[in-house]
Each structure stands twice: as structure tokens, then as C-alpha cells.
């Protein structure tokens, strides 16, 4: 019996050692290198603008119960926070829709902005609810709350990670190496906290705000597939062709 016990312990230890994580380290493979970055030809660049409408019955925004964590509840004293899953603006448009060029963008290295995109944790809510970044662009994560948070992205293509961030802790700088639309992000300490990150290989994306509009500028002339993504209503794809210096409008409509 003693030998069985020792064997069980040894087997458990081997299992731990052998289980090297659920994904390989995120070292971008030596893929066929795209041509080097070159300045965008602004003189001939095209623009796509539009708005994302919502039709149907306006959904009720669910109230979040933060009583499990008084520090969170205090931040919303008098006005309980609402879920941002579906936010219909006053003009009937939809907020937090990620719009991006899904196909047709020339295969080249696009310059990565040196400015990080910020995600704040304030009042135990993520702000903004949806962001877009380029692959390998920094994301700055800030905790403005007097409570612990953990940041836990759930990618399928990129590396998953889970890190804590104490109250008033140093900002975290993170990046994702591969294109992935979208990556859900959650805080397991506060299960209502959820946001989404769209990671794209080029700079042609936008997120709708409180007027429901978007604008994608600097596109080379060409034929593209443009996609609008919403966390509840899914995606809509449209093919669009733009010429040099052309401005085109492309609207989307999601039904509730």
C-alpha cells in the first residue's frame, strides 16, 4: 500500500510537470514576412463612413447587483449601474459595435501606433466596453478602483493570461500578437465585468460611440469586405469597393 501511495504522488507530480500550460508561449512564428511598412498614400486614400442602426424593441438594460463588493457598490451610490451588453443610443443607433475591414487590405506591414489604447477599471466596470487595437500595439490597463481586480482575456488564437491588479497598482502594458476579432475580457472577482478587444493586423477599424457612427480613413483604393460585430447580435458583412480619394457611406442595421 505504501508503494501505491508513493506511486500516486509521483504520478501527480509527473502530470504537473508534463502539463506545460494550455497554449504554447506566444512567440509569433516566422511567417512569410509582409513587405515593410511604408507611408500610407494619403493623397489617394479613401474613406468609409456610416452608422449602425438598431431596429426592433429597445431592450431593457439589465441592472448590475454590486452588493457583493461594497467598494464597487459605493462607486454607484444612487444610480445602480446597467449592463452594457446592448446600448441603444438616443438616436436609435447602436453603441459598442466594432467595425473593421475583414478582407481585401493589401498584405503589408502597417505602422503600429506607439500610443497604447487604454482600458480603465473604474467603478468596477470596464471603460471603454469595446476597443480595437492593432496586433502588437500596447494596451494600457489601469485600476482606478479601491479594490482588487483580475484581468482575464479569453482569446482563442492568442495566448490566454490571467493577472491580478491591486488598488492603485501600476498600469499594465499588454499586447496581442495575432489578429483576433473579438477577444472577451473578464474579471473573475467581479463577474459582471466584461469587455471586448478587437485585434487587427491593420489600422482600418473603428468602434461606434454615443452617436452610433464610425469612420475608417486612409484606405487604399480597392475592393473590401467590411464587417460590423456586436457582442449580442453577431456580425454582418458587406462587400464594398472604393476608388482613389473616394468617400463612401455604408450603414448597418441590427434587429433586436
Amino acid at each position, binding site marked *: *500500500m*505504501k508503494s*501505491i*501511495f508513493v506511486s*500516486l*504522488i509521483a504520478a*501527480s*507530480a509527473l*502530470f*504537473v510537470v508534463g*502539463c506545460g*500550460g*494550455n497554449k504554447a508561449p506566444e512567440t509569433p512564428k516566422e511567417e512569410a514576412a509582409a513587405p515593410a511598412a511604408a507611408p500610407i498614400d494619403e493623397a489617394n486614400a479613401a474613406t468609409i463612413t456610416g452608422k449602425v442602426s438598431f431596429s426592433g424593441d429597445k431592450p431593457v438594460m*439589465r441592472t*448590475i*447587483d454590486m452588493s*457583493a*463588493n461594497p*467598494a*464597487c457598490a459605493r462607486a454607484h451610490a444612487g444610480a445602480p449601474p446597467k*449592463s452594457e*451588453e446592448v446600448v441603444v443610443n438616443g438616436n436609435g443607433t447602436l453603441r459598442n459595435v466594432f467595425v473593421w475591414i475583414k478582407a481585401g487590405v493589401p498584405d503589408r506591414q502597417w505602422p503600429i501606433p506607439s500610443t497604447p489604447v487604454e482600458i480603465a477599471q473604474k467603478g468596477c466596470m470596464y471603460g471603454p466596453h469595446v476597443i480595437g487595437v492593432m496586433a502588437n500595439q500596447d494596451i494600457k490597463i489601469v485600476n482606478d478602483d479601491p*479594490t*482588487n481586480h*483580475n484581468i*482575464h482575456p479569453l482569446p482563442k488564437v492568442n495566448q*490566454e*493570461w*490571467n*493577472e*491580478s491588479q*491591486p488598488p492603485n497598482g501600476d498600469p499594465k502594458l499588454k499586447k496581442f500578437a495575432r489578429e483576433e476579432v473579438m477577444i472577451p475580457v*473578464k474579471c*473573475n*472577482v*467581479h*463577474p*459582471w465585468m466584461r469587455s471586448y478587444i478587437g485585434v487587427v493586423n491593420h489600422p482600418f477599424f473603428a468602434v461606434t460611440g454615443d452617436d452610433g457612427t464610425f469612420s475608417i480613413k486612409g484606405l487604399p483604393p480597392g475592393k473590401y469586405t467590411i464587417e460590423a460585430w456586436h457582442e449580442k447580435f453577431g456580425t454582418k458583412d458587406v462587400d464594398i469597393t472604393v476608388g482613389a480619394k473616394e468617400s463612401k457611406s455604408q450603414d448597418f442595421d441590427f434587429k433586436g
Partner: protein
Amino acid sequence: MSNVWLHRYAVLWSFCTLFLVVAGGLVTSNDAGLSVPDWPLSYGKLMPAMEGNIFYEHGHRMVATTVGLLTIGMVIWLLRAERRRWLRNLGWISLAAVVAQGVLGGMTVIFLLPKPVSIGHACLAQLFFSTTVAIALFTSESWQRGAQIVDDTGGPPLHWLALAAPACVFLQLALGASARHQAIGILPHVIGALLATGMVLWITVRIFMRHADHAALRGSALALLSVTFLQVFLGIAAYMSRVATADAPQPMPVMVGFTVAHVAVGALTMASSVVLAIQVFRHVRWPLAEMQTEGVVVPSA
């Protein structure tokens, strides 16, 4: 000679283990599994601020530590006071199980809830609880009073049914854990419920019809049948509450309550089926032995 205090300690150990199963269920249902990103410490401390879901995850670790210590205590007590070698060995097995369970729990945190590990953690919890209940039974006064042997004729042999029942219940628990950790859909768990419930009905009805005057068999069968019916009701309630609150921005108390109760009663169902199997093997004469006493030539293996 029975040791009353050893038995009471074993019962306490079993209750604490059931509480641990409840604590683990609360972690999963509240999506708190990764609210503490490090292990074995929590936020680098023995006692972090118990805010938000950290309460469930660190609370689970605290209860698990207590059960681990109780298990060590049980093994020491068995080694010192118990003459039955097989029971002392069962104590060692329970210790190995609780150590493995702790390692699996740590791996779920470190490797970000890999499904096979999470499912293994859930299944081993059920087996460990059944082991504690079995040890509580073996140390009881009623067990040491001796067996009241009865015969059971006709096929299939009651012993086979007694083995098939916990096997079906365990399969059903594994399917439930797999569905809970989103490795499979809900349909296999529903089909498994039909299989497990049918198996429980088969053996319990047979015992009620043939051995209703045998207190140990009747009591064990009644306990198994009762918790199985309760479990079916809780399974339906857990599913309906999950569907009803699917759009909620966070886990809702009604869903958490029914789901955790379903997990806990699942553990009781497993333990009850194990107890019934033990009672059948203890009190019912093997058909093989009966055939031999009647002069039937039984081919050797």
C-alpha cells in the same frame, strides 16, 4: 469492538467533505475559479481580502485545507486504533485522493481551467466523498454487529446490479461535470439521467420487493431512491433557472442555488449508491455460493 469516537469523527469528516463539495460548486457557479490568479497562496498571502468572488475561491481553499487536515487525522487514528488492515489501507487511499485533489485544484488555477483537469477535479471530489462515507459506515456500530445474511435468487444477480448502480451514477456525474465545464452539451447528461435513474429504480424496487424486511438493505435503498428523485428535480430546476437567467449580467442567486444543490445532492446520490452496493455485498449471499451448496458444478475460472 467499535470505537464510537472514531465513527463520530468519520461522520464529521464526511459532513465537512460535503460542505467542501458545496464550496467547490459555489466557485464554479459564480465563475470565481480564477478570481485568485495564484496558487497555493492567494494574492501572495495566506489570507487575502475576501471581496467579491475571492470569498468563494479562497473560502474553498480554506475548507479544502481543513478537510485535508481532517483526512490526515483520520489516517493517524485508523493506524493507531483500527485492527482491520483493509480499512487502514482505505484510509491511505483517501489521503492519496485528497492530495491528488489538491494538486488538481492548483492546476486548474495555474493552467487557467483546462477542461480535463477541471472535470477530473469534480469527479475525484465525488469519489473522495463516497470514500469518507464508506469509512464512516465501516466504523459504525451497526457494521460491527455483523451481517444478517439473506439469499437472492433469479437474474440478474443483485450483486451485479449493486455494482452497476454506482457505475451509472458516476458516469452521470462525469457527464454532468463535463457539461458544467462546457466540454460537452447538455444532451448526454440528460440521457445519462435516464440511464442512472433507471438503474437506481431497478435495484431499489427489487430490494423493496424481495428484502423489505431487511433493515440495512431497505434503509440504504430508500435513501438512494429518495436522493435520486430529489436529484432529478434539482437537475430540471438547475437547467430551467440557467435558461431563465441566461441574459443576466452576472450569475443569479436562483441559478447558483439550484445548481450547487444539484452538485451536492449528486454527491449524496453517488455515496448512497456506494453504500447500497456495500450493504448488498455484505448481507446478500453470492449466487455462486448458493449454487455450490446446492451441488451445482460451477466451472472453475
